[in-house]
């Protein structure tokens, strides 16, 4: 596969360099919202949507900033774009599904400070992707985030029934689990070589 082909960019963000398990982006929601399978799935969908919107906006804004040589404002502009995209998603979800809105709770506005989203915008700028590549990258990254979140939620639902020493329950156990998942994902490293 060509390194800049759309398929490769998608697969790379989806499993090879998974945002959560290989690049450590977006760990707060990964540990915070992975308690229940249903919530995790919905959170993943919300993140995919925010990623698509903010990646598109970031691409357009970066074009403008480069044109007027204002690159030092990049970070501030990206953050503003992401915050507005999150606000949009929040209003949509609140309107269409109040139950989902309640289930996601504080983690919905916190998507703003999800480093996966800002990371996505920064990486696509650093790697100088064109518009289609940006789209493939953002869908891949969002899908990868959802995959990691759903896998983790499924494992943790089972783990709730396990009998473990009290000191190792909670965060320590979740992180060990994430480590094992990450180890498994390293197996994809040779893919598409």
């Amino acid at each position: 596969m060509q390194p800049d082909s759309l398929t490769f960019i998608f697969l790379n963000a989806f499993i090879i360099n998974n945002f959560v398990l290989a690049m450590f982006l977006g760990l707060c929601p990964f540990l915070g919202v992975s308690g229940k399978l249903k919530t995790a799935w919905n959170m993943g969908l919300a993140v995919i949507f925010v990623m698509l919107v903010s990646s598109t906006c970031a691409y357009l804004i970066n074009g403008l900033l480069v044109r007027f040589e204002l690159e030092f404002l990049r970070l501030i502009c990206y953050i503003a774009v992401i915050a507005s995209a999150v606000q949009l998603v929040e209003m949509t979800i609140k309107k269409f599904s109040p139950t989902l809105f309640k289930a996601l709770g504080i983690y919905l506005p916190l998507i703003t400070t999800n480093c996966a989203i800002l990371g996505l915008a920064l990486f696509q700028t650093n790697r100088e992707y064109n518009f289609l590549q940006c789209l493939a990258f953002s869908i891949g990254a969002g899908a990868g985030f959802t995959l990691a979140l759903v896998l983790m939620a499924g494992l943790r639902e089972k783990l709730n029934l396990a009998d473990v020493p009290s000191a190792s329950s909670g965060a320590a156990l979740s992180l060990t689990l994430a480590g094992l998942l990450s180890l498994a994902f390293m197996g994809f490293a040779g893919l598409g070589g």
Partner: protein
Amino acid sequence: MVKDPRIPESLSWDTFLRGLWKENPVFVMLLGLCPVLAVTNTAINALAMGVATTFVLICSGILVSSLRFLIPKQVRIASYIIIIATFVTIADYAIQAISLDLYKALGAFIQLIVVNCIILGRAEVYASKNNIVNASVNALGMGVGFTFALLCLGVVREILGNGSLFGFDLFGPGFQPWGIFALPPGGFFVLAFWLFLFSAVQNRRQKVQHQKETLENAT
């Protein structure tokens, strides 16, 4: 607990020490985990990241605290983010000028300091309610606590994964590095280990306390 913003907390050692131990951002509050795991493959990266974050923490703390009567409540989060983003941009360019190698090693994670929840959390919970001196002391404490946590991981991962510390070879050529610890899964495992250690110590302390109390009650 919501405090009246006009009555600042009095300055004490506790303002500083809280961030180091009792409210350690990483080990106790589990905030800002992304950089903790991502840049701690060597101790020097961990230290650089800690210093950069501390710089942003202190500067944004001072600015947020001095503007606390001017920023309207409704737009405060947006204002804090803009303030933080400004200082992160400064730190980003400064590191680029000081050491290009370090800049490349840390990658996008310097710019991602913007979305580190510790900084926004401090601005919202502490700096916006206290005077400038308190805010900067508290930010310094948090920054040192964060750097301490980063070093805890960085040192273990560098020794096990590379057999060196701050770039110096420790064990000589016969050492077989345990490569997995320099890779992503190692980060998860080492952090899990530290958290386990912390909660084990905490549990033990509580147990001793409990035994003492029951003994006192019995006599």
